[in-house]
Every structure is written in structure tokens, then in C-alpha cells.
């Protein structure tokens, strides 16, 4: 397949993300990468579970967390995962405009999640003086949730730059894998959040 065919395919295959060897490599490689990311978050969860009672005389999780806001955040992020599925559905149908719209909705939801998370953190810091340096629990909380937040931010910047870069030229076999793995990444972030919601917030309040 020549460079020209990759950028201007005569017809898009059913799974354009796997239309080239590079695409297939990206697909397999990214799954492996997510395997590594799983260990990364597992280590952070382990650390958090070991330290979530070590409040050092400061605020405990029961005193800090409220479920209302976190529940809204969870719903927003879950929805954004669904919208990115729609985007991929349209990618497979070679409907670039629709894919962009759904990705756009995903990004808006992602940013609202991030905004609420930043609000939550500032709330803890200003209302309760609960920071990274308050206790081992504080360190573990901000590191685990912050790592996830950092992943969200990175994912958002990634998807936005892909959308802008390809806005004018539409789908091809070169950028389809890029969109696809970005959406895989987004799902992964969502799954991690489900665990954070359960382990940090639900178990922290109950």
C-alpha cells in the first residue's frame, strides 16, 4: 500500500483502525500499554488502601467525602464513555462529521468532569485544609485521584488535538487508528474511575 493509498483510501474497510500494519501494531500495542496502566493503578490503589486510615489526627474520609457531587461526576464520565462509543461507531461507518460531533460531546463532558474534580479538590483544601501534606491519607488520596485526573486531562488534550488536526481532511487509514486508540484510552480512564468511585468514595463513606 503506498503512502497515497493510506491517506486517500479508495474505500474504507470495515475496521479502518486495523486497515494497515501500523494500525494493527497500534491496536495490539495499546492494549498492552493498558495492561501496564492497570498495574500502575493497581499499585496506587494498593497504596491507598494501606494508608486510608492513616489520617494523622486530621480529617477522615467519612468527614470529607459527600456522595452527591461524586455521583454526578461518575454519571458524567460514564456518559462520556458512551458518547465515545458512538463516535467509534460512526468512524466504522466512515461518517467523519458525526464522529467529530460525538467526540466533541465526549470532550465537553470530560472537561466538565475535570472542572468538578478541581472544584472538589479546592473545596477540601480551603474548607478542611486537607492537602497532600496533611497526612499519609491525604498524600494517598490526592495521588490516586490526581493521577486519574491527570490521565483525564491528557486524554482530553489528545482527543482535541486529533480533532483539530484532522478536521479538514476527514478519515483515512492513517488517522483512524489514532482516533481508535484515543477512544480506548478514554474507556480505560472511565473504568479506573468506577474503581475510584467504589474504593475511595463509597468505601470511604460507608
Amino acid at each position, binding site marked *: *500500500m*503506498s*503512502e497515497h493509498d*493510506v*491517506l486517500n483510501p479508495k474505500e474504507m474497510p470495515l475496521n479502518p483502525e486495523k486497515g494497515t*500494519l501500523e494500525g*494493527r*501494531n497500534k491496536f*495490539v*500495542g495499546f492494549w*498492552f*500499554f493498558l*495492561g*501496564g*496502566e492497570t*498495574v*500502575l493503578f493497581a*499499585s*496506587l490503589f*494498593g*497504596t491507598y488502601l*494501606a*494508608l486510608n486510615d*492513616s*489520617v*494523622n489526627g486530621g480529617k477522615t474520609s467519612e468527614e470529607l467525602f459527600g456522595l452527591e457531587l461524586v455521583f454526578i461526576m461518575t454519571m458524567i464520565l460514564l456518559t462520556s464513555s458512551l458518547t465515545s462509543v458512538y463516535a467509534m461507531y460512526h468512524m466504522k461507518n466512515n461518517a467523519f462529521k458525526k464522529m467529530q460531533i460525538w467526540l466533541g460531546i465526549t470532550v465537553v463532558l470530560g472537561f466538565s468532569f475535570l472542572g468538578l474534580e478541581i472544584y472538589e479538590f479546592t473545596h477540601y483544601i480551603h474548607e478542611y485544609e486537607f492537602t*497532600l*501534606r*496533611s*497526612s*499519609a*491519607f*491525604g*498524600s*494517598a488520596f*490526592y*495521588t490516586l485521584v490526581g493521577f486519574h485526573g491527570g490521565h483525564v486531562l491528557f486524554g482530553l488534550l*489528545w482527543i482535541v*488535538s*486529533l480533532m483539530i*488536526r484532522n478536521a479538514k481532511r476527514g478519515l483515512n487509514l*492513517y488517522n483512524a487508528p*489514532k482516533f481508535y486508540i484515543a477512544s480506548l484510552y478514554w474507556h480505560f480512564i472511565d473504568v479506573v474511575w468506577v474503581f475510584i468511585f467504589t474504593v475511595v468514595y463509597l468505601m470511604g463513606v460507608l
Partner: protein
Amino acid sequence: MSTMVATKKRSFGSVLWDYLTTVDHKKIAILYLVAGGLFFILGGLEALAIRWQLVKPMNDFVSAGFYNELITMHGTTMIFLAAMPLIFAFMNAVVPLQIGARDVAFPFLNSLGFWLFLFGGIMLNVGWFTGGAADAGWTAYAPLSTTSPGEGVDYYVLGLQISGAGTLMGGINFLVTIVNMRAPGMTYMRMPLFTWSAFVASALILFAFPALTVGLFLMMFDRLFGSGFFDPNMGGNAVIWQHLFWIFGHPEVYILALPAFGIFSEIFSTFSKKRLFGYSAMVFATVLIGFLGFMVWAHHMFTVGMGPAANSIFAVATMAIAVPTGIKIFNWLFTLWGGSIQLTTPMLWALGFIPTFTMGGMTGVMVAAASADYQYHDSYFVVAHFHYVIVGGVVFGLFAAAHYWWPKMFGTVLSDKLGKLTFWLFFVGFHLTFFIQHFLGLMGMPRRYWVYLEDQGLDLGNAISTAGAFLMGLGTIVLLYNIVVTQVKGEKVSGDPWDGRTLEWSIPSPPPFYNFKQLPLVRGLDPLWIEKTEGRKGMTPAEPVNDIHMPNSTILPFVMSVGLFIAGFGFIYQKDNLAWLWVLFIGMGITLGSMLIRSLKDDLGFHIHKKDLEKEAE
């Protein structure tokens, strides 16, 4: 392209630029070999300084503080900056050739992995020049590491973080290369054992390194941003570091050892002119060792106070690893059985490996016995044990691989005479150094001792040990001399100097940059051997001559790594002065900017046209 220019004289600048921007796995292999080799020499010099300090009781060759920096940097350098990259050198040089691929799956990531490792390695060593390198041991146990004054441990944390990211990329690259890019007919159960071991080692990298990444992040937050993960005064728990470190650290042993096992499997088979005995059992054992490697990390922590139940479980799990390892040893012996053994230099290293590594494995089972380990732990017995495994297993393997694949990488053969001299000096020196240390440990010498008191019955053993270390040093010098002499002479060899069995020997030495003009058709284990026994000279092609797609060279990986290197200084020195945050932002800006360019700029590679390929053949 590169095959044509190789014959012409080129300016130093253009060669340098070529290597800075290369994405060719064979050139990246050479970069790993050179950088890993230099760090190996550095780590070796540190080892000699350590041994010289211990040559007699209460010696004052180095100060206590400097000694602690030496042991820390010796361990860190040898594991992360010498053994790992040298393994990567041979994986890069050989794995794509063994599976009949023209390239790796992610040439860009491959290059990025190398530059991250190199700049991480440099970062680790910057500490020497800024008031002291890391001094908390290569295991950096908290709270000693979190309270160590100065910036030494900060350099350790950031250096390892950067080079660890590089290693992770390398691991993913090899996994995907092996999954996706095997030549037609190269099924999993026809892959050479070195490729198999590279595959399993890469999987271990993928699942082990993130634990270290997290550990290093937590340590960085504790040291630089005031968090309290490991600080008992803030409710932290210092033992968490040990768990994270060894969840990474124990698989790391197999990340190093498995590829070495792979190397020996190739060598035993080649130089006894026999198919590897029990190939499927060997594959099974490799995978099993990799799997069990994740279940045993806490055997490094028997004295931490985990209680008898945990200690017993981890003891038994650890002993279980001896079974697949034993399977390997016996299959190697039976590969030799009935063979036609040629005592070449690589084979000598492989034969030296068997008794040495068997002893390392024996002491491995002994230290796995928790209630006996209460005596061995943190004593010279353990020092002896892991040097038998890491030197007797891994370093012997690397020396063997260097002699075995040198022709493939450079097109010349290292002198056999000098090679054998290196072997005997190193082999004798090694056992002289480390055998006695088993007894020193049991006689009451803990590890990481800067001095030992007079009249404790430890003098003679330490003196012998030091003498052995210098023999090993001598052996290494002979190897370096061998390399220089061989390269100056520059006698070219054929593509198949050892009567090889696997695909890498079916192409010229060194291979053209596209490796295979036509992808080979693989018809079984030892594909080249099969063709040879059927009277053919080389592989049967699986395709007609066609255009070949190759990736473009790029400087971006280098720039990204430089960015992280710069950011590292910002991370460290912002603890003294917040103005350094600017350095952090600039560095991260360079790296993230390069990533953005990489993501947005189309990079489709290029094609070598059929006509040019045919012309070259003429």
C-alpha cells in the same frame, strides 16, 4: 541506502546525525551496546573500589559516605544501566531477524526508549558532580532514602523514572513486534528460544515496571513535595516502598535472566549441532518462570515482620521456581548429549554458565527457606547468591551473546584466542570473588558494610574476594582489547560463520537496513537448518521482490528525552528555589511539544523501490 553509504567514507557529523536520528533496530542495538558497555565499565570500576575498601579490616581507602554512594551506584548502574540495556542491545539486534521481520513494530518508540534510558542513566550519575550521588542502596529503602540529605536520591528517583519509561516502551515494542510481525510460517511454536525469552521478558517488563514507576512517584512526592507516604510521623508506612520495589524487583531478575537463558539455548544448540532438546518444555518453563516471578516478591522481605503464614507461603512459592529452572538445566544438558560439541568462545561461556548458575539456583532455594533466610538475609551470603545469578547467569550470557552475535552485528569475528583468555580470567576471578562470600555471610558479615572490625575472622575471605574481583577486571580489559583489535583489522565474515540454525544467519553480516529483501518462508523450528539439510543454500522466499516500506529517521525521540532530562533538574531544585519551576516547565514543554508534533505531523515512512532492490543485488 545505508548499505551503500557504508562503503563510502562519511564525515563524523553525518555519522553522528545518522545515529541521533536512527530508527533502525540494528543501529539502536549498537547504541544500546555502546552505552550499556560504558555503564558496565563504570559499574565495574565502582565494584573494584568497593572491593579495594574491603581488602583489609578497618580500611580507610574511601570515606563512609562515599562508600555508600559507591554501593548504591554500583547496584543501580549494573542492573538498570548495564544489564538491561545490554539485553536490549541483543534483543534489538536479533529478535526482528529471528522472526523474519524487516523492522520492529514501533521504530519511533524503540528509538525513544533508547534515548530515555541514556538520559535517565546520565541523570542518575549527575549526582556525583553536585555534592554526592544516591547513597541509600540500590533498593533505596525508605525512610533512609526519603531522609537522605542532598540531591543524590533525587537524581536516583528521576533518573530511574526516565530510564524506566524508556524500558517500558522497549518492552511494548518487542511484544507487538513478536505478535504482529513474524514471517510467513513462523508460528509461536517455531520461534527460536531467544525470541521466546525476549517475549516473556517484555511481558514481565510491561507488568513489573509500572509498580516501580508508582514507587518512584511516591518517593519523589515525599522527597520533593512534602507528602507522607513513607513518613511514620505523618502516618505513613515505610514498608509500602519495599512491596512496590520488590513487586517490580523480583520480576526484574527474570527480565534479565530469561533472555540470557534464551541466548544460551541458541548457543548450546548451534555449537553441538543439535536441535534444542525438549523445545516445548523449554518454552513452557520460560513462561512458567515468568508467571511465578510475580508471585514471590515478598521473599525479599522475610525479616520485615510479615508473620509466619506469609513467610511460609512466599517460601514455598519461591521454591517452586526451582522446578522450571531445573527443567531448563536438564534440557540444556541433553541438548549437548549426543551432540558434536565445539568449544568456541560463546560455547565456553555457555558451559561455564551451567555449574555457576546451578550454584546460584541452589543458594536461591536455600535463601527461599524463610527460617534459614533469617540468617542469610542482608548478609554476604545473599550478596554471593545474587551475583551467582546475575553475573553467572546474565553477565555470562551477555559475554556469550557478544561473541556469538558480533559477526551479525558488525560483520567481523572477535578473536577466539583472546575470547578464551577473557573467559578464563573472568570465570576464575568470578568464583574467587563470590564463592567465599557465602561463608563470609554466615560468619557474620552483613552486606553494605563499609568496614569490618579486626579479629572477626573475616580478613582472609575478604582479601581473597578482592583478588578475584581484579581478575574479573583483567578479563574485561582483554575483551575491550579484543574488540579494538578485531575492529581495526576489520576482516569481514560471511553471513553464517557458525553454521547457524535460525533466520538471522540466512542474511548477510551485517544485514542490509531492510533485513530481508524477500520475507522468508518458515517451515519449522530452526528454519535455516531445515533448508540446509535439504541441500539449499538459504531460505525459500515467501514473496516476490517487491517495494519495501521503511520508517523515516527522526530527531524527535532525542529531543523528547532531552526535554525530560532538563525537566528533571527543575523537579529537583524547585525544592530549594521555586524559580527552578521554570526549568521544569521549559523541559516539559519541549517534551510535550515534541509529542504534539509527533501526533500531528504525518509520518508515513518511505518505500524502497523494486528497481533499486534489484539494482543493489547486481
